């Protein structure tokens, strides 16, 4: 009863707050429309320019040649055009003269290193033209998929050895043995196991063909504006403090839990409404497809929860609503830039990509990309969901600690 009264008041006050209505409803719709107008006609990946790449194979083993084969395969021919060169100097020259956008180098002894278990030392390098971040990002993405695949292959060799030892069928494994058997196993895995090899290709293929700037921005705007609106909604808590209405509530027979609970419920409801409106508008007026409904629903809910906790955490650092208006917008914009709301994170350098994971939006975008662009399902985004739950808990604890001062 009191809870509903508080909730109703919350929604009425917000609906009469112009800044809040703009932040929560109008801005996301306008931004998404602008994205549709700007990127809506750029079709699928085929319209991306073909990226010139140089490849250096210093390995001369199976993995090196598998890499070259992959890069030169037909599946990638409308995405990259590959020049094979003899050494790194030649490749660097090509890069410096802008003849290529990226260089992929397989180091000497790569095959041996990986299958003797010391794979970490010899990794495939990608050098990029800093002026072509997107192109470099695409190449890096391809190489990453390849590396993951190889790592999976070498692990399975390792496991096989382990089983042989445990079952007593093998007493001692030497490096050389491992290398020899591993090499053969890997070669088999990469070259003859066409089914799995095609998986690597089809993964890349689907990114390539499904990547669509409008879709990217539609999901990116959803994950950005939820942060804006939750910061805006959290502002009402500070407003209640400033208005003296929070203190007044505490003089009525109403428990702090009810007061705070209604505030959070209000935020979550607003967040859900905002996101659903945005999604439906994109879906029915802009031709967006959102992918697996269950995955999208779960992701939306956890996105809103994490954003609400984020909004409250930001509010807990602010002394006043005026401060939150400024600080909140700044924090969200920075997080948006870091977390990949404006540019796909794949083009970021490694360190930035890792750093961006402190914000919920990077995880949300990552998960949405899997669901929307790669037709993923709930099981494909468990990592992201768990990470978002973790962040929600952290933000909530920070918020609870910080906001206690309001009731002192």
């Amino acid at each position, binding site marked *: *009863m*009191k809870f509903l*009264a*508080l909730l109703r*008041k919350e929604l*009425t*006050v917000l609906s*009469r*707050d112009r800044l809040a209505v703009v932040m929560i409803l109008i801005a996301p719709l306008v931004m998404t429309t602008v994205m549709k107008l700007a990127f809506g006609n750029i079709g699928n990946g085929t319209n991306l320019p073909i990226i010139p790449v140089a490849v250096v194979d210093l390995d001369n083993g199976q993995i090196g040649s598998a890499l070259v084969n992959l890069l030169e395969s037909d599946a990638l021919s409308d995405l990259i055009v590959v020049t094979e060169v003899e050494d790194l100097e030649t490749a660097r020259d090509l890069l410096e003269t802008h003849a290529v956008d990226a260089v992929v180098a397989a180091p000497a002894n790569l095959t041996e290193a990986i299958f003797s278990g010391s794979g970490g030392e010899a990794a495939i390098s990608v050098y990029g033209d800093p002026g072509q971040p997107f192109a470099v990002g695409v190449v890096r993405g391809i190489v990453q998929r390849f590396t993951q695949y190889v790592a999976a292959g070498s692990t399975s060799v390792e496991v096989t050895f382990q089983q042989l030892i445990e079952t007593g069928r093998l007493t001692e494994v030497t490096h050389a043995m491992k290398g020899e058997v591993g090499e053969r196993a890997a070669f088999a895995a990469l070259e003859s196991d066409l089914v799995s090899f095609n998986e690597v290709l089809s993964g890349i293929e689907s990114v390539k063909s499904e990547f669509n700037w409008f879709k990217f921005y539609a999901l990116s705007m959803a994950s950005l504006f939820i942060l804006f609106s939750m910061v805006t909604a959290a502002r009402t808590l500070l407003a209640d403090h400033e*208005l*003296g*209405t929070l*203190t*007044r*509530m*505490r*003089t*009525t*027979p*109403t*428990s702090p839990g009810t007061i705070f609970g209604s505030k959070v419920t209000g935020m979550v409801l607003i967040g859900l409404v905002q996101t659903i409106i945005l999604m439906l508008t994109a879906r029915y007026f802009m031709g967006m497809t959102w992918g697996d409904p269950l995955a999208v629903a779960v992701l939306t809910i956890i996105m809103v929860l994490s954003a609400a906790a984020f909004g409250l955490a930001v509010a807990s650092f602010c002394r006043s609503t005026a401060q939150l208006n400024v600080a909140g917008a700044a924090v969200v914009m920075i997080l948006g830039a870091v977390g990949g709301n404006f540019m796909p994170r794949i083009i970021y350098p490694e360190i930035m990509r890792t750093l961006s994971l402190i914000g919920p939006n990077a995880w949300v975008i990552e998960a949405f990309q899997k669901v929307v662009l790669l037709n993923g399902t709930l099981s494909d985004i468990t990592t992201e969901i768990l990470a978002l739950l973790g962040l929600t808990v952290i933000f909530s604890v920070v918020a609870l600690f910080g906001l206690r001062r309001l009731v002192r």
Partner: protein
Amino acid sequence: MKPILQVHELAKQYGDFTAVKGVSFEIGEGEIFSLLGPNGAGKTTTISMLACLLQPSAGEASIAGHSVRREPQAVKRLIGVIPQDIALYPSLSARENLHFWGQLYGLRGKERGQRVEDVLELVGLRERAQDRIEKYSGGMKRRINIAAGLLHRPKIVFMDEPTVGIDPQSRRAILDMVKAFNQQGMAVLYTTHYMEEAEELSDRVGIIDHGELIAAGTQRELTERIGSTETLVLHIDESQDANQLAHALEDLPGVIQSTVTDHQVSLVTPSAREVLAGAFGRAEALGTRVRSIDIQEPNLEAVFLQVTGRALRDN
């Protein structure tokens, strides 16, 4: 008279500083009790502890037998707290605000509707009730602010300096409202540093200074304590030095106490008529022009002056 509020040795400590030093008093059902004291005396701290907003450091207080420490929810149902500053939602109408606060006090359906109209009537704003609070004048906001604390027919209403910084007209309206809802049977705990307000409203007055309740009783009881003294007030020009004059008058025969408030010098004396000539003489000798004088009967101001040695409005 049955007490509705009982306070026993209530104290509040902020670190090393004791803001309220063990005050004890009672308020009877339907009574108006004023806590009179200057800024920083501990009025807000005391009222906050009674409203369960602040945990007491020591002592006890109860409303109708319910402890503020152990039964805050029961206490909150019985009290109406009227914040000093307007605590309403500007974007909601007066009626929406009142319905909201009524709901938080647990009022439902028809009863709530009736109470909202009743208090709107009481504060005289029924015709404007559908307007948003942000469209109201300051005085009107204050009236709704008070109305919101009366919805659940509290047994006792707490008002912490409700007239600070407002125009005389709104002040008048508020004092009249306090009398009106007191007529309906609600007791009142009213804090102020204006002597006239305490005098006009209160059945009983408590004088508080530096966190201590120095004296409490009816106005008659309090003024009798200081005996048959009068206060002679000399109003002097703004350009002149009141402190110098007060100092010069301290040892004038017949003067018990000499204090400065703004451009006034107040002399406590058994007989104002007898010290008048002497006071004028010394003022003239200093070259201080006295513009007018007042002779006041024993009042709370004089009581405060005598028990604390300071004028109520020093600061």
